[in-house]
């Protein structure tokens, strides 16, 4: 298949899933598309399986905490998709409420999502529904809190090891 521009990729998404796309930003540093949280699983499946898109590589999952947004505190989960065959990429964002961030897991679609989702859960507390083993991956199992939340306070000690700040 051939390489598509971001606008064409979004057009395919809109054609197949008319209600999924909430917002598209094409004039930023990187263009991206925002999709509804409920629609993410369907969008992900379409992204991989539609031959025009063919996003076979999930390159990265990023979570960003925005506690002070005007329309309510949010956590953004950002998926960077890549197509090795078609040489095009897409950035998909999903905005979740900060007090209860829940989104469908895509580990069945891209196996790499397994560890990336665990990392996002560990560091930001995003719950990926349907993940077979959503436990901490980088921090210790009994760690408290999610360090990349903006209001995170590091503990004074952990199992008797003091937190020394120089």
């Amino acid at each position: 298949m051939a390489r598509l521009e971001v606008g064409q990729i979004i057009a395919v998404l809109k054609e197949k899933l008319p209600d999924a796309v909430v917002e598209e930003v094409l004039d930023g540093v990187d263009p991206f598309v925002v999709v509804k949280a409920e629609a993410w699983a369907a969008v992900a499946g379409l992204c991989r399986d539609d031959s025009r898109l063919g996003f076979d590589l999930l390159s990265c999952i990023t979570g960003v905490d925005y506690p002070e947004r005007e329309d309510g505190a949010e956590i953004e989960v950002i998926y960077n998709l890549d197509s090795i065959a078609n040489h095009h990429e897409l950035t998909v964002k999903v905005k979740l409420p900060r007090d209860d961030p829940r989104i469908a897991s895509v580990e069945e679609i891209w196996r790499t999502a397994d560890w990336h989702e665990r990392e996002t859960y560990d560091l930001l507390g995003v719950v990926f529904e349907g993940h077979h083993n959503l436990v901490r991956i980088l921090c210790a199992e009994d760690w408290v809190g999610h360090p990349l939340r903006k209001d995170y306070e590091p503990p004074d000690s952990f199992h008797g090891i003091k937190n020394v700040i120089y």
Partner: protein
Amino acid sequence: MTEAKIRTEEMLLNMGPQHPSTHGVFRVVVRTDGELILESESHIGYLHRCFEKCAEGNNYLQVVPYTDRMDYLCAMMNNWGYAVAVEKLAGIEVPERAEYIRVMVAELNRVASHLLAFGTYGLDIGAITPFLYAFRDRERILKIFEKLCGQRLNYSYVRVGGVTFDMTEEILADIEAFCDYFDPKIIDEYDNLLSYNGIFISRTANVGVMPADLAISYGVTGPSLRGSGVQRDLRRDAPYGIYDRLEFDVPVGTGEMGQLGDCWDRYMVRMREMRQSIRLVRQALAGIPEGPFCDKKAYRAVKPKAGETYKRVEGARGEVGFYIVSDGTNIPYRVKARAPSFSNISILDKLTSLSDVMVADLVAIIGSLDIVLGEVDR
């Protein structure tokens, strides 16, 4: 009849976190039936140093040294990945001379990293000699880097807007001398010493076979993915810097010793990449122009406009990516690092379940994926 009294049952075996063949602090719990591995479970995080959290407390230039410490075996590529992302955000133009220097140091760093992979892979399999030769030659590269920036591992040399110090004529001569010394004579020697050694082949061919579609699904990139025959190299497919002007081939696995995507293929891709890297260094040496080595303003401070970007470069282990969110201040709002080893090692549990893997093969598989735990855990 003593045989009847021998009980056989499955055993849980813990490998690591301190284990010489895991190349760092990596733990695998394996369920074994005798020598055979039935199932494995990887545990990471022992080396977590909160890179992403630290990045939210330092300004854009202060983050660079943290990126060194992710993949300390090819720090230049981490610096570069971070630098291209910030340059994209801030709209900084990199001087031509700096682009040539970047290619030179990055490719030399790739050779140094692959040399270490080659040496330690020999060690893992039981061949001690290649390791000594590999370190002899890696040392030459590290000496060049030491002369260039005073550091042997954590260079912080590629920085936002260019590089930290200018390249001198003396160092250029050193690099040229290294290329002439190394390629083709020394790499041929390595191939004779290890690559086509019968014992080495029987330990690595047909072991840990990684089908291409599975590898992509697990996010495997770099030489490990190319070992499965996938033509994918960001330097060619999504060129950054001046790679679109340089000529090089992308070696991929062919399954010539066994099945496509086995440990030998992944190993051999690295050996062949070293030749291509030297080829790139030679082209950069021939074309390096005079001029500034860094953007003057960016050398002092960087303050991008609000925005976000995701940029990747081809590191020695795969695609090094940085997702950076700027809120318009001089401190990044969020920096997310995509470390190639993180995704590459996640396929290990699958590989052990795909075929009959012996405990000794597990060592061969981990070695062939060439992970650096510093970047797995960040």
